[in-house]
């Protein structure tokens, strides 16, 4: 993971103070190969010569806009790009992402947010191509392996059906938070899943039979009346 901090980062913004501030934050986070540019022309030449591993682009630049700069860079490089724009309109966001940007942050931003998103992109792009594994976690007596879709209970293996698995994944992604039944239906049956609420209840009951000691008095998979469900997971550190 440490080698991510070795990556070369290019910051393009016409405001020198913004450049200074971002550079400062990144250095504090441990990045040390940082380039800065104030306009499209110098940004392009740095891209050609320095071959940065990541670029943070402003949308409004003195000699053009970030979108056309992105297109120019894309002609010779697949460098991941994050837009940092003072324009918050949805159109701009969609345009930027549609052109192949990896993320779009609207100013003003919190430094932590910028660093988190940057790290997420770097991880996705540069980490060793390890198969992303779904987690395994414990719920009281049971342990649930989402990767192999199996519940271990009293030395027995209870396999999960595809639908039960999809429900548990969605609930686990939002553990300890309420997930609306609409969102669960959408996760399992896709868009236009209206009318599956009763079917969802049936599947939830089957999930409970596998993960709850007493399915009629659930303590892990709770019903939030009128809204949806909530999976209580106690983190074991």
């Amino acid at each position, binding site marked *: 993971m440490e080698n991510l901090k070795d990556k070369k980062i290019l910051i393009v913004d016409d*405001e020198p*103070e*913004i450049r200074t*501030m971002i550079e400062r*934050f990144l250095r*504090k986070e441990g990045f040390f190969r940082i380039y800065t540019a104030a306009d499209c022309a110098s940004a392009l030449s740095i891209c050609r010569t320095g071959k940065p591993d990541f670029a943070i682009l402003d949308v409004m630049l003195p000699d053009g806009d970030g979108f056309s700069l992105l297109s120019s860079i894309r002609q010779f490089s697949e460098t991941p790009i994050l837009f940092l724009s*003072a*324009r*918050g309109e*949805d*159109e701009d966001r969609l345009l930027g992402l549609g052109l192949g940007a990896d993320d779009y942050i*609207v*100013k*003003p*931003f*919190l*430094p*932590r947010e910028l660093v988190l998103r940057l790290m997420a992109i770097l991880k996705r792009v540069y980490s060793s191509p390890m198969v992303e594994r779904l987690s395994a976690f414990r719920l009281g007596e049971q342990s649930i392996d989402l990767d192999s879709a199996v519940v271990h209970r009293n030395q027995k293996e209870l396999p999960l059906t595809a639908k039960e698995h999809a429900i548990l994944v969605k609930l686990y992604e939002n553990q300890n*938070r*309420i*997930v*609306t*039944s*609409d*969102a669960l239906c959408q996760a399992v049956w896709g868009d236009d899943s*209206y*009318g599956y609420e009763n079917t969802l209840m049936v599947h939830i009951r089957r999930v409970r039979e596998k993960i709850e000691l007493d399915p009629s008095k659930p303590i892990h998979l709770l019903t*939030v009346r*009128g*809204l*949806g469900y909530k999976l209580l997971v106690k983190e074991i550190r």
Partner: protein
Amino acid sequence: MEGIIRILRRFVATTIFISIFLLIFNFVLLGTLVFTENYQHPSPEGMIKQVAQGLEKQDDSFQLDEQATELLKQNHAWAMLLGDKGHVRWDYHLPNDVPKSYNLVDVAKFSRYYLMDYPVYTSEHTDGLMVVGYPKESHWKYQLDFLPDWISSLPLRIVLLLLCNLALALLISIVIGTRLIRKIRPLVDGVHNLAREQAIQLDAKGIFGDLAQSINSASAILQRKTAALQDRDEARSNWIAGISHDIRTPLSLVLGYASEMEDHSDLPEEQRHQAGIIRRQGEKLRSLVSDLNLVSMLEYEMQPLHLKHIRLSVLARQVVTEFLNNGLDDRYDIELKLADEAVQIHGDEKLLLRAISNLVQNSVRHNSQGCKIIIEASLSKDRSQYLFIVRDNGRGIPQEQLAEITELYFSTRRKRPIEQGHGLGLPMVARIAKAHHGRLVLASGVDQRGLTAVMEFPVQ
């Protein structure tokens, strides 16, 4: 186009009606004006009958009674009675040029036409043939001969005649009508386009030239005004967008350094606390700027809508779930009463989420003592509107402020200072509802307590 066809139809119908009316009118006139002169009283046939009856045989001579004499005198007529042998047996004022004796041929001749140019009429009398003559050239006599076939087919012929008349009237009216319509059509199209605010330039020649000119100038004025209005709205919106853009860069620096100081472990606790305040206020400013931008875009109808079919009940659950997941205090109790869940409206998901969220946030923010919030959604009674209601039993809004609370606070219509929040929440909801062709209605709850906010959306 439909309008033009309607005009043509009316025109043709009116023309046919007028033609039929004219025809009937003419028949009536024929009877009352043309043929009345001929219809003298009594008719020659009537008079001769009276004269024949009035002539009495007394011994060897004839005597005409007073009434018949008077009648003849009035009409300047003369009369004679021909005996069996063709001699005049009796006469009254017989002119000199009329012979006194007739043979069979003579009688046959004058009984049909004239006797020495005198129009004469004949009638039977017990003692011979009664002849009454009128002054020369006072009557024209025509003989009419009809075949039975002709008489029997007469009604058909009259109907045919009427039909021909009708067809001709129809043809003429359609020809005249279409010619007129061809001239009117550009004008009609022009006025329709005027209503659609399109630019129009009509040919100002022809009989409707001045009308076309007026429509042209009305269009020009309208275009100018619309353009000016658009320019102004765009300028206002761009101004706000520009300001919010210009605020974003300095605010980035404020937020960035303040949050850095807040996390800086070398700084004393107090300074870090103060940096935290700066950071929080900066974030408030950030949300104000983006809300202001959104509201002004909505106000000037420049906010693009990403429309799709949405069930509001889904959004309601999503908003409530977010509030609960983000640790809503136990003082607030949210209850959902969702009906007609299958109903979809055409809307922008992000904006609608924002509107619902604003309404709930509004109830939470203005009732720090806690309150019960009820979210209801259902079709209206006539099923044309979908109603989304957020109701609380909190402090509510004074009646006199209800009307103006959805105005923007920089508007002259809203003068009261805002107590809490930045005062954009409800104006934003009202504008989001309006952008969806709906509306926001605010009312006080029961006993003037609490606030009831109703969003109405049209159901497709």
